[in-house]
């Protein structure tokens, strides 16, 4: 008896490296790896949930999606929305971080208030924006009109919908970028600044030749973090427009949700998800390369 116990304990001693992480690995496998693998499998099948079983169709779904106008519309909307919002968030985030990176009275209170949007629940915030952006009863048009300006269609207008959604995204997420950049700024060494000041550099030169090169890896890291969510932005757009008017704000991600859970076409929907996954992956690999080369410099 005691021999078996010691045998077990010896076995465990020798295989600690495998045993201890095992529960976590098994759980991760079940909830992350398996669904992704199943999704990739489904992408090569044709299957409407409930109607028979998945039928293997090879690359048919991927061939179909090349000629699907809504896929191209989705990519276009995704690039427009993400490009504009990420650029504004990084730009504004950096400027505001620079402004906060100095001593002034009440700076802590201002900073605490400033991060409110980023701390709020996305869907709750989106619901409020949806009402504020309503052209008939929304407060934004009320304000514009009380200033004697014409109202806008906001998210109800084909041309205005993406800029309006970008406005919400920028309002919500710029504080996050600011926080990351601010942490980066605070950790910069003081010596180069002293040297530059002795050499007589002005504020703009200091920013351009010292701050920006030193902060670049942090900026790219912030961009990567934000782009992971932004490229597959769902809750905010879905809550405010569901991709409308028509398909004017339907990103590829929203379209794949529509196909999968609106039309219950699991095969084609999975193929679209794979494409979204690849886009996010490629973008992040490129960004990571940029971050590493910026660090090396």
């Amino acid at each position, binding site marked *: 008896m005691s021999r078996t116990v010691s045998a077990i304990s010896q076995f465990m001693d020798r295989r600690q490296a495998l045993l201890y992480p095992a529960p976590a690995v098994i759980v991760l496998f079940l909830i992350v790896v398996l669904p992704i693998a199943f999704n990739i499998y489904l992408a090569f099948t044709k299957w409407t949930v409930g109607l028979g079983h998945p039928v293997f169709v090879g690359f048919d779904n991927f061939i179909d999606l090349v000629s699907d106008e809504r896929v191209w519309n989705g990519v276009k909307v995704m690039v427009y929305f993400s490009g504009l919002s990420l650029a504004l968030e990084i730009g504004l985030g950096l400027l505001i971080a620079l402004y906060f990176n100095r001593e002034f009275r009440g700076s802590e209170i201002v900073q605490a208030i400033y991060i409110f949007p980023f701390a709020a629940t996305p869907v709750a915030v989106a619901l409020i924006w949806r009402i504020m952006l309503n052209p*008939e009863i929304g407060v934004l048009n009320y304000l514009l009109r009380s200033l004697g300006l014409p109202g806008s269609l*906001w998210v*109800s207008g084909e041309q205005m919908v993406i800029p309006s959604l970008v406005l919400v995204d920028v309002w919500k997420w710029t504080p996050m970028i600011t926080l990351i950049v601010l942490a980066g700024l605070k950790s910069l060494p003081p010596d180069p600044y002293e040297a530059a000041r002795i050499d007589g550099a002005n504020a703009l030169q200091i920013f351009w030749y010292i701050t920006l090169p030193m902060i670049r890896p942090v900026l790219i890291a912030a961009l990567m973090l934000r782009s992971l969510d932004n490229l597959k932005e769902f809750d905010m757009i879905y809550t405010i*427009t569901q991709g*409308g008017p028509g398909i004017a704000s339907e990103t590829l991600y929203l379209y794949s949700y529509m196909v999968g859970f*609106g039309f*219950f*076409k699991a095969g084609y929907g999975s193929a679209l998800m794979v494409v979204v996954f690849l886009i996010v992956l490629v973008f992040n690999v490129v960004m990571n390369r940029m971050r590493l080369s910026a660090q090396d410099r």
Partner: protein
Amino acid sequence: MRRIASVALLTLLCAATLAASASAQVNWKQFQGTEVRFLMNKHPFTTFIEPKVAEFEKLTGIKVMMEVFPEDQFRNKRTIELNAGGKLDGYMIMPGQDELYFWKAGWLQPLGDFIKDPKLTEAAWDPKDFFASFTKAATVDGKQIGVVINSETSLLAYRKDLFGQFKVKVPATMKELEETAKFFHGKEVDGKKMVGITLRGKGAAATSQWVDFLYSFGGSWTNAQGKSNLAAAGSIAAFKFYGDLLKNYGPEGGTMLHWAESTSAFMEGKAAMIYDANVFKSLYENPKESKVAGKVGYAIIPAGPAGSVPHVSNWSLSINKNSPPDRQKAAWLFLQWATNKENSLGAMLAGVPAGRASAWNSAEYKAKDAQPDWTANSLKSFEMGQPQWNPPVINVPEIRDITGQVIVEAIQGKDVEASAKKAAELMDKKMER
């Protein structure tokens, strides 16, 4: 004379015994101890029936587990559970939307054998009392698969106070509808600028109201060959008329109006007319939520070139084909009880438009009815209604989505003919039957 009287008495007695024996044949306790599970949409009918379930449990000894979810979640959960094959015996369904898909998937139990079986169905349940158009709508391949619990159609609701004040006639034709909308559009009433009419404009969601215009203009979903008919002259006329009406005389941002936005514009007193589901009467007439309560008149859809053709739709209760026979029968007893005359009348009085003519025509309901024009016009619509309010395909949501794009483009003032043609081609490609 005495003889006649005694024959009459005898006949009466016979009839009474017959009726008694007919109802006595259903043993309500036959499935005592069985447990059935129903998945329900959060709907006024569910709100009405849920507190009464205990009565049924007492009558039968059957335990009813009822799970209720908001509509979007309900739809997702229902499909996923039916597909996974878990323990689910009955559920709510909109036959016009889901029946073909669910039928092909093998999730709908035909009810005919239960209805015919005197051991399972009381004569007093009287299937003929249900409006025929709804029973027809819940029938696939000649088999009835659901029993109506909520009957719907659409009506034109208008501000009868303003129509009286400006001496405007209720529009009877599409031409008059447009003229009336134009007349009211931009008028100042109580310091507020009115819009002529409000309608749903949001893609797929708009199709269920637009379809009445489709039929009234002589269009249809498919032609005799089963091909898409969206690009036919009548269909294009319907797209154009509907789009123009909303674009020219509707609220701003028409393409984003779902029923919630459209009805609230009307309830705010901003619109002179609205065309939407008749069940929204309960919203319009609720003085706590609506500024127009008591000022609303109701009419059937104005006549187009093909006449007035409203649609009828309904929620029904169905039984899962994959549930075991005993539980199916127990579920049928529940379904039968939930839709009997007494409960239908109770639902009707609680504001749920029932599927039984007897409930609509009852003295109790008539005494309580504050909008007799709504009742009369709803009944008129039920009689002439078209149950095919969705495309006759399995993949309804996808085809509705394709159709909705044309409605959006019509509201945006784009080339309707071109977009209808494109949609018809896409529909032919994607249609599954």
